[in-house]
């Protein structure tokens, strides 16, 4: 085992620390050791300093503070002994960074060591500078590095090139300094130097478009070097699994990518080479695949001929069939980037991509899902939907939401196909993790496909009968039963075997939802409204509905109670309007935002699908606007805040006329200004004659509007 005097003392301490049985014991040992180390540092040069610093570095690695060693690093770096320099530099790299003042102090030592007679000392200095050199240090020492790039041995040149890279990253203006030497380094034979040179040139090109232009002239040279690597006979030193220096190949390919991007001349010059690498590289091991992968990336990013692009996509396709999961994964990552631009080429591999949905690694599944969704087209929609639905039923929980929304988006895009609709319902039935906003979207989608209403309500009814724990499913099912209950009861439906559903069956199902503790308040709202709607769609059991509605008139849940009371009134006082109010909903526009019950704001509201068509009053107070949806036939205080109180009163005037009165009072100190009232009414009703007066302090003002059937809105007064 490699050891030395240094090694032994260090190992002793390490053994002692490791023998500690508890964290507390370890801390005690460390404290003692640090005290010793500090004492050693104070004693000055005694041949023990490097041991002490080494111990301190170990302690640092365990996570304990070691700042007090920083100055010692500075001192050791300045020592003439190699063993001390070496530890000093290591310490500098571990304990010092640009933010410490001490780092500046080593600049001079580094400078001296860069011209040291021993290449190993030079190497230490180079390494440290490249690791933690601050901008200031870099500026100071850049000329030295540049000199080393030109006139030194290979070992040093290798390090100098990468040190130059670091300098340019820290101080971009210094790039010019290194450009000439970088160019000439390309003619080096030593792989390590070549590698460094390519990295350096890449960095220079990325920093400066003019430099990039200059280096385009080097493309032929780079092509030659690559050709040499690809076709060379077995070169043992840099061989990895039969590939000659794959790391260098990868870097050259990356540089070619940058040089060929958006430039026809450069792209042409590398076309043949890329084809050669693509066809001749053995991909049975990772090394070869790494080179092939980089080749594909380059082909895709330059102006390649279409034949070359197809070749690249085929490589990715082959990767998809590879046993190594890593390779399948990166293939899909790349395919995702080109699926828009090279759609047809990627489509050819659709089958394999879909197979990857079954992979055990979730990240692979995720890639396969994204790609699959991108590959859905009018031609393959049916089979793809099938696969995606199968995937949904077995996919890991973290992917459910993405899958469901992906399927929905695809469904929306192709909503003309009624087959899709059927699958849509199956999504819900598969128990997809549906977000709240999806419910109104799905409902809207359902209204647009009138030929499917019968099928939809049958399917959903059956699902509802089986289980009612999934809220989105239950909500959509209730809504459909309410809307299309008549179709459900008729019993006949093309796509489903007919089953006789009685009115009692349907009402049973809805009541179960109403009573279940699993139902959320919103869901119960859906169920109650659906029950109410059925009163115009069934013939025998209207009384049952009446009694359900009246029971809920005293429900604890305020929302439910309010609805029930309204519906009760609809039965009693306004029975003649019931049919009109509860009639079939119109097809809803696509641009309606998703609604959640009751708390959206704004003027252009589409009808809320969960309620029969109500009268709305929008009230503005302070900066925020609030919409309060009120029932038809109540007299109650609907708003009370900051001294403003509003009551709504509805009175039947004639058989066809209802007077809705908004009574406002202002008990605040100041006048209320910028008050505006808008009323929206369903199409069976219209609004006329708004009369507004000003609100002033301590006065009651009355705003009244008469709602008449059959007339269009006269004016809406805004105040």
């Amino acid at each position, binding site marked *: 085992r490699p050891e030395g005097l240094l090694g032994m003392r*260090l190992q002793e301490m390490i053994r002692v620390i490791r023998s500690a049985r508890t964290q507390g014991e370890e801390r005690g040992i460390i404290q003692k050791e640090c005290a010793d180390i500090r004492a050693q540092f104070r004693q000055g040069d005694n041949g023990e300093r490097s041991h002490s610093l080494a111990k301190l570095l170990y302690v640092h690695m365990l996570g304990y503070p070691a700042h007090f060693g920083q100055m010692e690093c500075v001192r050791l770096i300045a020592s003439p002994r190699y063993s001390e320099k070496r530890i000093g530099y290591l310490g500098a790299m571990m304990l010092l960074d640009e933010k410490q003042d001490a780092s500046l102090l080593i600049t001079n030592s580094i400078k001296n060591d860069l011209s040291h007679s021993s290449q190993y000392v030079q190497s230490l200095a180079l390494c440290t500078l490249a690791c933690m050199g601050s901008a200031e240090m870099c500026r100071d020492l850049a000329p030295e590095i540049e000199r080393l790039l030109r006139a030194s041995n290979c070992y040093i040149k290798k390090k100098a090139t990468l040190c130059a890279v670091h300098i340019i990253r820290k101080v971009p203006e210094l790039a010019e300094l290194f450009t000439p030497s970088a160019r000439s380094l390309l003619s080096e034979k030593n792989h390590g130097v070549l590698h460094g040179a390519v990295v350096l040139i890449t960095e220079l090109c990325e920093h400066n478009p003019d430099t990039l232009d200059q280096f385009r002239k080097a493309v032929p040279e780079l092509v030659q070097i690559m050709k040499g690597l690809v076709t060379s006979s077995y070169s043992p030193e840099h061989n990895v699994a039969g590939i000659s220096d794959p790391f260098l190949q990868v870097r050259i390919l990356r540089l070619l990518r940058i040089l060929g991007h958006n430039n026809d001349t450069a792209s042409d010059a590398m076309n043949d080479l890329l084809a050669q690498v693509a066809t001749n590289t053995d991909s049975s091991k*990772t090394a070869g695949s790494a080179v092939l992968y980089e080749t594909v990336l380059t082909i895709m990013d330059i102006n390649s001929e279409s034949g070359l692009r197809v070749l690249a996509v085929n490589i990715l396709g082959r990767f998809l069939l590879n046993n190594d999961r890593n390779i399948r*994964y990166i293939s899909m990552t790349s395919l995702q980037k080109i699926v828009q631009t090279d759609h047809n080429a990627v489509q050819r591999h659709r089958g394999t991509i879909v197979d990857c949905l079954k992979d055990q690694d979730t990240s692979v599944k995720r890639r396969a899902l994204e790609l699959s969704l991108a590959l859905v087209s009018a031609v393959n929609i049916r089979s793809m939907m099938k696969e995606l639905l199968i995937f949904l039923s077995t996919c890991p929980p973290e992917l459910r939401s993405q899958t469901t929304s992906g399927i929905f988006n695809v469904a929306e895009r192709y909503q003309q196909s009624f087959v899709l609709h059927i699958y849509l319902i199956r999504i819900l039935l598969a128990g997809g993790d549906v977000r709240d906003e999806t419910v109104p979207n799905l409902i809207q989608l359902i209204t647009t496909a009138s030929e499917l209403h019968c099928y939809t309500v049958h399917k959903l009814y059956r699902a509802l009968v089986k289980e009612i724990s999934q809220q989105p499913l239950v909500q959509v099912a209730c809504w459909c039963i309410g809307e299309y209950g008549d179709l459900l009861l008729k019993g006949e439906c093309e796509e489903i075997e007919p089953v006789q559903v009685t009115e009692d069956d349907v009402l049973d199902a809805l009541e179960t939802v109403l009573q279940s503790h699993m139902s959320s308040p919103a869901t119960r709202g859906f169920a109650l409204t659906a029950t109410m709607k059925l009163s115009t769609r069934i013939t025998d059991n209207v009384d049952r509905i009446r009694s359900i509605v009246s029971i809920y008139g005293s429900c604890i849940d305020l929302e439910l109670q309010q609805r029930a009371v309204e519906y009760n009134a609809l039965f009693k006082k306004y029975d003649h309007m019931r049919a009109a109010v509860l009639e079939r909903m119109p097809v809803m526009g696509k641009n309606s935002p998703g609604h959640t019950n009751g708390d959206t704001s704004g003027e252009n509201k589409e009808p809320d699908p969960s309620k029969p068509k109500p009268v709305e009053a929008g009230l503005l107070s302070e900066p925020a606007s609030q919409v309060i949806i009120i029932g038809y036939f109540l007299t109650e205080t609907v708003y009370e805040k900051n001294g403003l109180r509003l009551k709504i009163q509805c009175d039947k005037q004639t058989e066809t006329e209802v007077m809705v009165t908004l009574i406002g009072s202002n008990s605040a100190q100041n006048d209320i200004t910028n008050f505006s009232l808008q009323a929206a009414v369903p199409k069976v009703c219209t609004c006329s004659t708004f009369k507004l007066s000003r609100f002033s302090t301590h006065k009651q003002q009355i705003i009244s509007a008469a709602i008449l059937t059959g007339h269009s809105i006269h004016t809406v007064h805004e105040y």
Partner: protein
Amino acid sequence: ALSVTVQPRCKIIRFILIQNRAGKTRLAKWYMQFDDDEKQKLIEEVHAVVTVRDAKHTNFVEFRNFKIIYRRYAGLYFCICVDVTDNNLAYLEAIHNFVEVLNEYFHNVCELDLVFNFYKVYTVVDEMFLAGEIRETSQTKVLKQLLMLQSLE
């Protein structure tokens, strides 16, 4: 949220870590500026992320706005943190290259070798990686240099 950002288009290795299953760090080489607490946080996060994975996962973890390429050898995880657009396979090979050198240098390396000779492990890293880039890939050359360096002590 902790993010590892560099200037755009800077494909650089952010750090290299060797950790054991329990989370002890056997080597931490940083190629970017981080505060001490940032370093600690990153070490913990990387450990948390790689130790839950097994043979049915890929060797790549996309994490926040960077990517970890890792490989497990016995009880040790070798992790390289790179840019999301970098070539995963090439770094996977680089890890293996590095491990083979360690194995040769320490004669069938085990975790304790890395513990008791930690400063030598840093020397190996510095021979093979520099400034956040792969530096020397020839195992023969690296081993030759390491032996030379050893003789100087």
